């Protein structure tokens, strides 16, 4: 029944091939239809799979189908099948990826309309390839297939960030993204090797079943190394700097890859390996700390950003931090839930931003916007929904998922909780700063821009509307127990995945009253923050030489982290490489090799002086040699004795 699973990635692959190879022959319409169509087909297939999984879990059967296509690598020590795993977790991600993917493809057909035909084809080819890779990542039944997807999405991210390849800054951003991802990938890879070494298999089923065979050191190391992979892919401290730069890519790309799907791969991976992490509490602690730190850190930076996409990018980093916090405190369902809702509202926000940028003719500075609600009503409303969702206003989806994570954090460690809440307040602040500057107040752009302001075409607004609806109601799949018992559909749905972990986690449930109080107070404060923010920023006027000072300057410059990396890592490596190239290689090793040659030449020049041309000196050397021969032969004892006698 899950035989159709292979179709899910196959459709995007076909789309990639058609668009990629035929980009010069196909019309834009055809490309758009093919590009979107294949993803839609995948979506449909995913829905069918979802249905099957649902049916199975409703009947309380463990649905855990592994579809093996062929043996990818089979060597003596291990076998790595090219296999897909269709279960609750993967099917959920399939829906997100293909669903949002479809919407964003649709959106892109309009957004990228101005591109030349073959670039348009290239764009869709990349996008399809990305979906294909992402699907491999999610569906892979073992770590290697996941790694294939893992690197594949990195590649597509690289290609799409550098889509406008004429601009070298974009290329640098793309390169940075790829290399930072690679750092993480190395960790991932080492973890895979470790697993292979200890267990001889990388298939999830076998690994999780044999987890008992691993020592706690092994598990800690493996989980840490995997987490390094996740850090890279999901932009956590210290490997987060690529994500804001990745905004160089087309906005739909940011929406799909750098908000909704790819960056959540790390969460997926950890959720997938939850049993390992549950058994490695120290790793979990690290994850929680890193996640929380990232959440706060990115939020502080977002406060001072003026580029509409940058704000969203840091917000993404921050939200990913929350997800890791959730994972770190053992709230796997919560993390996945947040992935789910975040995918909706962050995609929505990015697409909305895209719509704004589209309307503003590629103006991205929010200080030069304002009062756009008049011209872009649909965008405005959908964006507002998104903001409310991310700020965590009930009953928008963000509220439920974030609350679940924070609740779990509270029971885990209250200090983390308060810090997390602080981050949530910052989120509300910067999101509504963004919203206010963009849509409220006065228009601060040029007159020409104002003249051309218009609402986006249907292909762009439909995804916005759909996503806005989903952002609003998406939280309903995970209503906390507080409100009604057994209402958390997601938890039940994913229960088989986290079953093993849940057995090991001692649930500390909060008192309902306490939970209500926390929820209520936090919500109240957030609303207060929003109100203040709107009031402050709706009066904002563009100042020419806006200077930041103190902490503001620090934040505006992103804590100087890029500069720090340059000084601490990049420059020394470059300098060392230069030293290798110019000194060690040239003077050292090659010098040694050439030195041998020079030595020969030198000794040649010296030795030939022996050939003086003088017969007498030739004969002299002969005679001396004869004497030496005699001395050698008779070990010169007899001769010294003689010499002692005569003198």
């Amino acid at each position, binding site marked *: 029944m899950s035989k159709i699973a292979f179709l899910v990635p196959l459709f995007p692959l076909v789309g990639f091939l058609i668009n990629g190879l035929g980009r010069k022959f196909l019309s834009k319409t055809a490309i758009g239809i093919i590009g979107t169509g294949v993803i839609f087909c995948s979506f449909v297939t995913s829905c069918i799979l979802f249905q099957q999984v649902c049916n199975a879990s409703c009947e309380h059967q463990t649905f855990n189908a592994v579809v093996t296509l062929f043996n990818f690598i089979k060597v003596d020590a291990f076998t790595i099948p090219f296999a897909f795993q269709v279960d609750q977790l993967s099917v959920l991600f399939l829906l997100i990826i293909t669903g949002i993917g479809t919407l964003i493809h649709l959106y892109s057909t309009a957004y990228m309309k101005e591109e030349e035909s073959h670039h348009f084809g290239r764009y869709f080819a990349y996008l399809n390839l990305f979906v294909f890779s992402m699907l491999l990542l999610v569906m892979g039944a073992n770590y290697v297939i996941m790694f294939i997807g893992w690197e594949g999405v990195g590649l597509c991210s690289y290609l799409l960030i550098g889509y406008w390849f004429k601009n070298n800054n974009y290329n640098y951003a793309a390169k940075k993204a790829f290399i930072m991802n690679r750092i993480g990938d190395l960790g991932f890879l080492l973890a895979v090797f470790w697993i292979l070494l200890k267990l001889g298999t990388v298939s999830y089923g076998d690994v999780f079943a044999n987890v008992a065979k691993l020592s706690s050191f092994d598990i800690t190391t493996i989980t840490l190394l995997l987490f390094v992979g996740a850090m890279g892919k999901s932009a956590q401290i210290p490997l987060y700097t690529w994500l804001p730069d990745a905004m160089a890519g087309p906005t739909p790309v940011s929406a799909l890859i750098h908000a909704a799907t790819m960056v959540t791969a790390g969460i997926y991976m950890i959720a997938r390996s939850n049993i390992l992490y549950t058994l490695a509490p120290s790793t979990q602690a690290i994850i929680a700390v890193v996640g929380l730190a990232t959440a706060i850190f990115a939020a502080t930076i977002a406060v001072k950003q003026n580029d509409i996409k940058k704000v969203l990018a840091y917000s993404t980093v921050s939200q990913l931090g929350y997800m890791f916090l959730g994972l770190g405190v053992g709230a796997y369902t919560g993390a996945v839930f947040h992935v789910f809702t975040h995918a909706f509202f962050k995609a929505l926000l990015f697409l909305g931003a895209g719509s704004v940028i589209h309307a503003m003719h590629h103006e991205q500075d929010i200080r030069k916007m304002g009062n756009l609600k008049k011209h872009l009503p649909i965008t405005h409303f959908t964006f507002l929904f998104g903001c409310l969702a991310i700020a965590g206003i009930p009953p928008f989806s963000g509220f439920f998922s974030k609350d679940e994570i924070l609740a779990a954090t509270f029971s885990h460690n209250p200090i983390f909780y308060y810090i997390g809440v602080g981050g949530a307040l910052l989120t509300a602040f910067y999101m509504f700063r963004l919203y206010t500057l963009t849509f409220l107040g006065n228009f601060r752009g040029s007159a020409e821009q104002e003249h051309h302001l218009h609402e986006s075409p249907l292909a762009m607004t439909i995804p916005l509307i759909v996503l806005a609806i989903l952002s609003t109601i998406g939280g309903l799949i995970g209503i906390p127990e507080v409100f009604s018992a057994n209402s958390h559909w997601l938890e039940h749905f994913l229960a088989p995945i986290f079953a093993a972990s849940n057995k090991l986690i001692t649930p500390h449930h909060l008192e309902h009253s306490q939970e209500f109080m926390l929820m209520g107070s936090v919500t109240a404060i957030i609303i207060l923050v929003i109100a203040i923010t709107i009031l402050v920023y709706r009066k904002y006027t563009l100042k020419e030489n806006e200077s930041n000072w103190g902490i503001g300057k620090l934040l505006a410059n992103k804590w100087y982290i890029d500069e720090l990396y340059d000084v601490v890592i990049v420059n020394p490596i470059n300098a060392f490489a230069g030293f290798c190239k110019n000194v060690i290689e040239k003077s050292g090793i090659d010098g040694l090799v050439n030195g041998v040659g020079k030595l*020969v*030449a030198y*000794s*040649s*020049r010296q*030795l*030939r002086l*022996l*050939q003086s*041309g003088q*017969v007498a000196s*030739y*004969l002299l*050397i*002969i005679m001396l*040699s*004869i004497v030496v*021969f*005699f001395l*050698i*032969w*008779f070990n010169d004892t*007899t001769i010294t004795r003689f010499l002692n006698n005569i003198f």
Partner: protein
Amino acid sequence: MNAIIFSAIMGVVMMFSGIFTQKKSAITLTAIIALLVLLGANICETYGCFSIDVNTHNLLHFTKFGLYFNTILIAATLIFVLLSGSSIEKAGVYVADYYALIFFVLCGTSVLTAYNGLLMLFIGIEIMTIPLYILTGSDKKNLKSNEAALKYFLMGSFSTGILLMGIALVYGATGSFGITSITSIAPTSAGALPISFLQVAGYILLFVSMCFKVSAAPFHFWTPDVYDGAPSVFTAFMSTIVKAAGFFAFLNLFEANATILGPTWKILITFVIIATLLVGNITAVFQQSVKRMLAYSSIAQAGFMLFALFSNNDLAKEGVLLYAVAYSIATIGFFAVLVKVKDHTFDGFNGLAKAHPVLAFSATIFLMSLAGIPLTAGFFAKYYMLAAVVKSGGSFWIVLVALGFAAISVYYYFKVIQAMYFKQGEPEVTSATVGYKIALVLVALLVILIGILPSIVLNWFYF
């Protein structure tokens, strides 16, 4: 015996051929025919067919190995004359005399391949060298040639003095001049020295003078100057056939005595081998003249040949045979090209491949053979030498040293190839006939053939 008699007769015939004809090519033709006769005579003897039955009173001892070696020398001379006949004709006016002297040298080599006592060794060496003094100085107007001849002569006679002193001391110790008898009378008297001092001293002096003859360092000094100064054709002859014969004599002399000389003997030989390889290879690197480079390279090759003496086993014997063939043919061949090129510096060879591809190709093969590149005869020659050393056991490091020097030798040999193939230039080349070219290519192919199947040389030895 056939070879000695026929070479003497043929020498006289060549002397007189100059009286009967003034056509130089006719003289060359006569020489070729005479060489063929000589070759035939020598081969006949190997198969037991003698012209005159001479009682040598044990002064000469004809072995299969020696006769076969002599056959090789004569054949090499034949190749030499075939390739360089025209150059000999241009070397001077006394063409017939030159050929006569070459035949007298062959007489000397025939003696050396069969000698069975120090007397015949001495006479053989003298017969071989005295014509060489003359050939070296045959370019009378050329001061370099004069100088070379005088140097060669002075140093040669000096080394003869050393040789004779050695012989005298050995005689004093043993009372005999025979090689075999010397070994049988190894003194065992209890003294300060394990064997008779006179004998050891004699052998050291003999060793030195033989080293001189085969130009092993540090007794090699005459070689570069003489090879450089002598007319190129005769250098080719001297550095190949004569040297090979010298080696044979050297090997024969010490083959039987190495055992009684004991371990110190190896130290001396090792010293000489290393010195020879060092001087030959290193000094050749810096040479500007190809001819002089070849002189040094011939020293280096001698270093390799000395391994036969070092290891002193059956493999060494075969090896020296193969070495003589490989080295002689390649050197003769390369000199045949060299004499055609007017400018003997490396730059003189620039662009030869373009102007004269056949010459360049053959020269490349010869040089590769000299460098010991596989699939040329030179490789197996070196191979046998080193294999012999390994087989004799111990001293593996000396093989490594030798190989290091072999790598250096590639440097200077390939400098010529570089000049010919990779550099631009207009080399001045005296006209080469079609016959010459065909002969050259055939010799080059022979080098490759031996390189692929060395057994064609060696199997004759086993019959």
